[in-house]
């Protein structure tokens, strides 16, 4: 079973993010970049499905600057078969639609039975790429998926909804966006890393369409004010002071 995984390289969740003083973006110096964690679920699921089917290829497709190659190689080391990087400049930005168009262009005309992607990228949290790619390719799309069972030309997926789960049957080919809980991504093994070097990785210079939505400015969320400890001689006095503060200062009761 052939499948593709759309993968984005993002700053490590542990990285301390600093906004540039002029608000045009984030400081990238010293920041470690990793595979978007939700995309990692996609890689793992694609590998599992290939292993279960006993044949097929997993292709990784990414848009990003040169450094994204590291993340594609990591996915190849996990076991994916080939990679494509649609290369753009380090600070070249476009919006989700332009990005999805370039991806759909790359993905179309191949026989991918499932195109996996993360439910969202943890850097800009847009959650748009999967559905947009599906729409542009005329494919069905199931989002926020925690389980995928493939049988023949359809797949039964569980997806998270408020207070429960929804079971969806979808005709393949389809786009599936992955949520935590779907699987536990494997680590790249040393033999995997050795093999990854020899796997094909195609780097294509890419020009994205001009964005329809632009980012004006980046800024930090306002600093949280320090907490306050209510003073008082005993519990009753403290409770009275608390009620007073909630009513008169915070005006919430």
């Amino acid at each position: 079973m052939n499948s593709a995984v759309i993968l984005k390289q993002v700053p490590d969740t542990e990285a301390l993010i600093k906004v540039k003083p002029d608000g045009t973006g984030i400081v990238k110096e010293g920041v470690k970049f990793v595979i978007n964690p939700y995309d990692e679920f996609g890689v793992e699921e694609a590998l599992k499905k290939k292993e279960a089917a006993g044949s097929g290829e997993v292709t990784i497709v990414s848009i990003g600057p040169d450094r994204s190659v590291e993340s594609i190689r990591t996915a190849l080391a996990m076991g994916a078969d080939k990679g494509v990087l649609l290369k753009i400049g380090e600070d070249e930005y476009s919006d989700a639609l332009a990005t999805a168009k370039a991806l759909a262009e790359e993905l179309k005309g191949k026989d991918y039975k499932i195109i996996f992607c993360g439910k969202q990228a943890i850097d800009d949290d847009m959650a748009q790429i999967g559905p947009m790619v599906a729409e542009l390719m005329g494919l069905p799309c199931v989002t926020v998926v925690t389980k995928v069972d493939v049988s023949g030309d359809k797949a039964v997926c569980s997806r998270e909804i408020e207070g429960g789960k929804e079971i969806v049957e979808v005709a393949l080919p389809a786009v599936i966006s992955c949520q935590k809980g779907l699987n536990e991504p494997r680590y790249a093994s040393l033999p995997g890393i050795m093999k990854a070097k020899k796997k094909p990785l195609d780097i294509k210079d890419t020009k994205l369409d001009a964005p329809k939505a632009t980012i004006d400015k980046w800024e930090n969320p306002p600093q949280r004010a320090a907490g306050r400890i209510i003073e008082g001689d005993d519990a009753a006095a403290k409770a009275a002071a608390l009620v007073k503060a909630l009513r008169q200062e915070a005006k919430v009761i």
Partner: protein
Amino acid sequence: MANLLVDIRDQQFNLYEMLDLEGLTKYPKFGDYSKDMFDMVLSEAEKMAVNVIFPSNAEGDKEGCSYANGKVTVPKSFEDVYKKFIEGGWITISDDAEVGGQGFPEVINAATKELFGAANFAFIMYPGLAHGAAKLVEIYGTDEQKRTYMDKMYSGQWGGTMCLTEPGAGSDVGALKTSAKPTGDGKYKITGTKIFISAGDHELTENIIHPVLARIEGAPAGTKGISIFLVPKYRVNSDGSVGDFNDVNTGNVEHKMGIKGNATCTLNFGDKDDCIGELLGDEGTGMRVMFNMMNEARLGVGLQGLAHSTAAYLHAVDYAKTRLQGSDLANFRNPEAPRVSIINHPDIRRMLLWMKSQVEGLRALMYFVAYAIDMSHSVEDQVEKDRWHGYVELLTPICKAWGSDMGFRVTEYAIQVYGGYGFTSEYPVEQFMRDCKIASIYEGTNGIQAMDLVARKLGQNKGMNFINFITLMTETVSKNQPDGALKDAVAEFEKAKNAMADIGGFFAQCGASGKFLVPIGNAYQFLELMSTVTLGFFLLWQGAIAEKKLVAIKKEKGVKDDDWVAVAALYKDSKDAAYYQGKVAAAKFYGAYILPHVEAMAASIKKEDMSIMEIAESAFASS
């Protein structure tokens, strides 16, 4: 999870800015490798260490190992961790492809071992000992022994140990009594008791292969009569599968201060006179064969000291930034002044900077020695080969003894930084200290290492290894020309280095004039002296590189040194600038506070004081 185990930026600095790791790929041995592969390996090793192995550390300590009805149980969580570790192929990271290894440089191996050791040393000993034992089979085994044992050990399917110690044979291995009786078919019956055997019994693997030092009946006393045997826990069937029990009986597991997750076992071989072993290598060469494993293990124990100390240091820094206590020194008269984090207090900074300089000095030393192994395997020219190999020989006892002794002291400082909380088992630092202590004892106590340094290593290769190392120090420091902030440190280093060279000559004279007790009685003092100079060298080398880069960053960003607001902002905003400033500070501190001790140490040695021998045994204590 955040990585409080190893400073990855410092790892990168060692590999790419101090050592020329990429340069290794010019040699045929490493021609197939590249920087992106090294980085990927280190990044995966970090994930494995932080996310998979470290969570088992405290748990393994609490659970420990137990023994009942002849069976040893290791911490439950180790099973899954072991499986993942094996699946990753980490055992054979730097072994040759012909034996199923990945062929990475030793220095990459050292960097990953530091990560794994910091994450859980008690755990990592299981695959580590299997590797060391398999290496013996690789070097000395017959093809049949390799197929029977080595392959399965390298793949992690079977475990391994090293069996030297007996109740009457600790430091003096030559006194061992375990015996081997030929059975006539080329094999031997082994009888005897080995104690303190790490990873001696467990069920992480379906079989365990013990390399056992023993004396063939009738062989001479002392080390010359010792041979080494491969003794499996379960015999191996002709098709390679696990067969009958081989009469290797576990008598006990030790209850210990640290590395509690590793089973330290008493093993009784041949209780029913039915324990069969095969000779490995030639008769009477047991010590020589085992020394291969011991050299690897000694560097490994040095890395253990580094591993616990780096984890302790990073935890201490993290704690010191968050624990609020006391007010800023500037406000000491004002009881209402806001509480500050303890990292603001000078005494905490003193401890942290001391720890930083020790940890980073040790890291540079360990990685340098691993790199020297790689270079000795890579260069063609025999003189060059010998030079690199000479560094490894000379510095191995320093890695082992200083890594473990300083590593331990760093873990102890970490507890001090935490205050009372550090003393409790709610926080991880006391475990780091307990786990670290064994490192100065096993693999030849540090006292034995000091004697190895003074009596063997200094004079080895007609003293050329020592001289080459002094030359390397001199050339490297003058090539990197530290100046500015490091000027004084360089001056202190020169004095310390000369004092060290002087004692080298002094010991040679003592030897020539029959005053053997002077070098032997001062062996540890000399190890201390030489280690102090060695770490000073590495810190200065690193500090010089860092200083140049820091100056360049300041220039690029237009930050002037006297504009302290801009300088402070630079260290806050630029990770690289802050990192390099830290390197310079560690070198400067070491030059000011540690290196000046060296001349005093040398003066003490030259006094030829013999108090230690003069004092009567009956005078040590009155009861």
